[in-house]
């Protein structure tokens, strides 16, 4: 039977010639990931399985990125639990403060995930690695515990939606605008339990950073995973970052999709998702010109990569952050941070009046750094604008691209970067 990219990867990892949607399988894992919050729950569960060692110390990754650098004593204790476990088990891919970055930027950068892999992570944005042509999906702490013990995870083989991308994005329109446009179109449960497969001749025009951003937010449409073909750019990325051999899977021409969409990238414009759901998207013809904001957040697993930093720097160069706005910029990894220093972005950000932070997930989930008071508004390049996500339950989050967020930081109002 004809299969999608996702179905082929799952079949190969389950040792089956083919799989069909709805089939329940046990798949072998190439990587099991956790962070300081989810691993702290998974580690005691791992002990309860009776396993004395992780299934493969080179296929477990633990990244202390959420409440780090430690935000309080309890967070410090959770990190200590993870650190002790990682040392005891000899976990190869263990990243602590000074080496750590936001997990979903870090794992591809370190070459831990390559095309064709089957990856689970106890973090919902694990779906990011689909940009490399891998199957990767978010799971919970119990799945992480059992994955570390056995090297396997149970899956229901998903149906798929196909998004055929054509054309090329206009200037100042990015992967973030593409995925917000799609979520606005299909809704926050529009891809529930399903794969989102991105194909078409428009793919080649998207940078790898754009593709990571698009796959990263597949979960915000409810998807099990998002995936791009492992084309020339994805294979070049994998070769640059990893020495591991990899397998390229392409969908069969007659693979079945439950719905198909065609998106001409050249017709897209900047998109902002209004409170309190990522599906509440508007383009600038529907956004009031005087919508004031108190804070701007640029970074996260969604938009903390070098291309995102470059987009923000291009806007902020020679400009100042509006006096009524607090702007916080946090590159996703140590390498990206260093690149920002070397390329002069750090100086641009600090000269503009932005706070330039060490990598952390803190601001995105209201963990620490940039928490909002009652009634405040933030425009953010992160992924969720749920009630209370970044602070008080009456605060508001507007999701946008780095260019839109940076332009808004300059004017103090939500601003189309093309008008600056």
């Amino acid at each position, binding site marked *: 039977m004809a299969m999608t990219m996702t179905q082929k990867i799952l079949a190969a990892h389950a040792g089956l010639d083919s799989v069909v949607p709805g089939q*329940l399988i046990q798949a072998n894992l190439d990587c099991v990931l956790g962070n300081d*919050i*989810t691993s*702290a*729950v998974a580690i*005691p*569960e791992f002990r*309860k*399985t*009776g*396993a004395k060692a992780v299934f493969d110390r080179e296929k477990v990754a633990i990244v202390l990125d*959420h*409440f780090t650098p430690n*935000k*309080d004593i*309890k*967070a410090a204790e*959770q990190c200590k639990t993870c650190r002790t476990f990682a040392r005891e088990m000899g976990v190869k891919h263990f990243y602590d403060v000074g080496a750590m970055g936001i997990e979903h930027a870090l794992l591809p950068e370190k070459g831990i995930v390559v095309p064709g892999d089957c990856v689970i*992570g*106890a*973090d*919902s944005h*694990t779906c990011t690695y689909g940009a490399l042509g891998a199957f990767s999906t*978010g*799971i*919970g*702490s*119990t*799945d992480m*515990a*059992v994955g570390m*013990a*056995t090297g396997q995870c*149970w899956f229901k083989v998903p149906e798929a939606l196909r998004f055929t991308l054509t054309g090329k994005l206009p200037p100042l329109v990015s992967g973030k605008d593409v995925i917000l446009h799609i979520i606005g179109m299909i809704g*926050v*449960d529009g891809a*529930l*339990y399903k794969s989102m497969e991105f194909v078409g001749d428009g793919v080649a025009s998207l940078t790898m950073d754009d593709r990571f951003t698009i796959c990263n937010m597949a*979960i915000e449409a*409810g998807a*099990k995973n998002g995936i791009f073909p492992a084309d020339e750019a994805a294979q070049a990325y994998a070769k640059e970052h990893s020495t591991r051999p990899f397998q390229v899977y392409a969908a069969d021409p007659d693979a079945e999709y439950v719905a198909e969409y065609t998106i001409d990238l050249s017709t897209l414009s900047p998109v902002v998702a209004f409170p309190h*759901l990522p599906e509440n998207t508007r383009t600038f013809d529907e956004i009031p010109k005087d919508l004031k904001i108190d804070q701007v957040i640029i970074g996260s697993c969604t938009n903390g990569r070098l291309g995102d930093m470059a987009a923000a720097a291009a806007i902020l160069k020679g400009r100042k952050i509006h006096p009524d706005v607090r702007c916080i910029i946090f590159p996703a990894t140590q390498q990206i941070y260093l690149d920002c220093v070397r390329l002069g972005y750090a100086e641009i950000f600090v000269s503009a009046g932005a706070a330039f932070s060490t990598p952390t997930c803190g601001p995105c*989930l*209201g*963990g620490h750094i940039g928490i909002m008071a009652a009634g405040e508004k933030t425009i953010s390049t992160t992924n*969720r604008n*749920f*009630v*209370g*996500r970044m602070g008080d*339950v009456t605060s508001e989050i507007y999701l946008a691209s780095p260019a839109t967020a940076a332009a808004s930081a300059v004017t103090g109002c939500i601003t189309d970067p093309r008008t600056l």
Partner: protein
Amino acid sequence: MNAKGKVFKYGDNVDTDVIIPARYLNDPRGEVLAQYCMIDIDPEFAKKVQKGDIIVANKNFGCGSSREHAPLSIKCAGVSCVIAASFARIFYRNSINIGLPILECPEAAAEIQAGDTVSVDFDSGVITDETTGKTYQAQGFPPFIQEIMAADGLVAQTRAKLEGK
């Protein structure tokens, strides 16, 4: 197995941030998380909920973060079952893995009201609203998932398998 309790009712897209906000994720213990369960959507929930009570919600319950703290806080708050029109997929598998009973039933989710007394027969998937007398048929679990639940969750099942080797 059966459950019976009073209903707490919520709408569409109840996300894991409102079920258990990140500010409480610095403690992994279920009994601690339970004190803050639903705090950003229903601040009175943790005070009012009684052992055995049931949550009924509309579509896409548990969307957002993969934090297992969300179903854990609900389970440890004493909730016996969550009924929804649909569940976000990570919340769905987390609930099965930790042994929090969940049922998909759009009709029940639409009609059952807050404060109703509802009973659930997990073997048959029949939901009864004892306040109105109406019954609903929820989707059953496939045998693969029933095995996980019968083994008292994925960890216990894995332990049994590893010991059997």
